[in-house]
């Protein structure tokens, strides 16, 4: 039996190593200074890069974080400090359900909300879609982290005459900071590689764009476009783009692991 179990582990780990090996093997050759600093070249011309897509991804993720993080943390505070009742249960259940909504459906919603009104594909619409995906994740992890803070600490603050809002922000949230940041980064890592909700919100762009109400390139979109294209040159760029994307995400996850290990909450 142990043999069978070992075999399953091997079968599961095999694709993981295969994917990473291929990413490094195919991607590393195409990552160079031009790839990181230039915009895509027209078909047939060698060279070019994904600089605009890398920056575009960051802009979209920035917009998403600006909207999603405060909202998510707020909802988390509600769940742990005000939501130990039936209303909290409803919000808790809805967040879990929202977590399971397919990302492409979120894309449709953001299209209806932003793109239809603006009559433009835009970075803003992409940001809205990703923010909607971040909120439930952040809310639930924030809640769990705040619940880890001992009740006695809150009571100590109340005993000193500190008001409830001040206790929540300066004592409870402060104590759980590293855990909350962990949750935020996990949500960030999760949406950073998303492609489906950006297809008809950010749309993609072959050129530089600095306006938030215009179609914007994103790394994941660019990888998709290049991967399904028939051109060898573009395939290489897709591998390189994937490697850059993976490095960004894995370093975020690793940072999270580190933060948890050395965080103030690890001993609590």
């Amino acid at each position, binding site marked *: 039996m142990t043999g069978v179990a070992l075999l399953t582990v091997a079968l599961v780990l095999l694709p993981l190593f295969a*994917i990473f090996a291929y990413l490094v093997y195919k991607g590393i050759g195409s990552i160079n200074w031009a790839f990181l600093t230039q915009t895509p070249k027209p078909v047939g011309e060698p060279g070019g890069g994904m600089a605009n897509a890398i920056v575009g991804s960051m802009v979209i993720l920035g917009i998403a974080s600006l909207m999603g993080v405060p909202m998510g943390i707020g909802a988390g505070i509600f769940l742990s400090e005000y939501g130990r009742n039936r209303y909290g249960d409803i919000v808790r259940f809805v967040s879990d359900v929202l977590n399971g909504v397919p990302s492409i459906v979120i894309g449709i919603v953001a299209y209806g909300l932003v793109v239809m009104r603006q009559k433009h594909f835009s970075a803003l619409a992409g940001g809205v879609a990703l923010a909607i995906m971040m909120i439930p994740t952040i809310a639930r992890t924030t809640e769990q982290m705040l619940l880890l803070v001992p009740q006695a600490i809150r009571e100590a603050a109340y005993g000193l005459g500190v008001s409830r809002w*001040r206790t929540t922000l300066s004592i409870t949230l402060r104590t759980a900071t590293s855990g909350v940041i962990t949750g935020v980064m996990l949500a960030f890592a999760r949406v950073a590689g998303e492609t489906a909700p950006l297809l008809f919100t950010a749309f993609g762009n072959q050129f530089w764009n600095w306006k938030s109400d215009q179609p914007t390139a994103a790394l994941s979109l660019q990888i998709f476009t290049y991967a399904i294209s028939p051109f060898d040159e573009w395939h290489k760029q897709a591998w390189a783009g994937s490697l850059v994307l993976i490095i960004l995400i894995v370093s975020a996850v690793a940072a999270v692991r580190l933060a948890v290990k050395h965080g103030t909450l690890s001993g609590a």
Partner: protein
Amino acid sequence: MSNQALPRPRFNAPDPERGTKAALKIETSSAPLLQGRVSEVPDAVFGWAMRFCGFAVVALLALIVYQLVAGSQLSWHAFGLKFFGQSDWNPVEDQYGALPFMYGTIVSSLLSLVIAVPLSLGVAVFITEMCPVGFRGILSFTTELLAAIPSVVYGLWAIFVMVPLLREYVQPFLGKTLGWTGLFTGPPYGIGMLAAGIILAIMIIPIISSITREVLTVVPQHQREAVLALGATRWEMIRMGVLRNARAGIVGAIILGLGRALGETMAVTMVIGNRPEIAKSLFAPGYTMASVLANEFTEATGDLYLSALIEIGLALFFVTIVVNALARIMVWSVTRGQPARSLA
């Protein structure tokens, strides 16, 4: 909202230190010390701001439902329930039926479960029951790394590595040995339902195995000891003492994986072949609900076309909601005693 609420209370907030000093000084006074100094207004404002954030989550769900329902009205009035029973998808003549997409979504997801469930159970059992303790963390971290890879990267890998392997080796072999079942016939394109099922399986293994692991670890140790004391072998102990006890949770984990597989878009779109046909053979190209949205949404020219696509999105949304809610309740029933209630 919460930002607006923050600056106001600055005037009223008592300094914690001053509060202490005051409390030490006026020990004998019978009047409540802080009366009139702690205003209840900032507390109320903050409380409501947080409640607003919480209920915004519910509002978000309502907004999603509203957007999808409103957007699909046109198609709903044109086709009614027939929309889900028709296999004709013809944008030129404005005829839309979702059947081939539903078929593709269901078949590819079930196929992925067939592959992923035994593998994830094996990994979960190995990690919780057999693995040396020091090795456990590394192994679970590695499996979860699979979940951190973006869907589009899976798709890229599938197109250029997995599909050629399928085309050259796996599909001819399957066709020769299992061709008589009718499931593995036709030309080996590489891309198609089989490729979609395999890449989906790779993507949902981390979810199923990590939740199964969680569920297995809450099975009480004395259950294992009791079964062993009755003379069971290790395998019998795992089967009767552990897996049977965690049944509901494991089923929940599997359904959660199913929910992910149903809604997965990019990797599937890249390898399934994108042809709205219903074929018995798993070698044949297919189409899923999520991938038709990904491919055609930006190109939908007519209002009815767009509306039909949104209706597919609505159907996908409801299926995943039901599947996820079911799974959550089953996982909760094992890990927390009761569903939803007993959190506090």
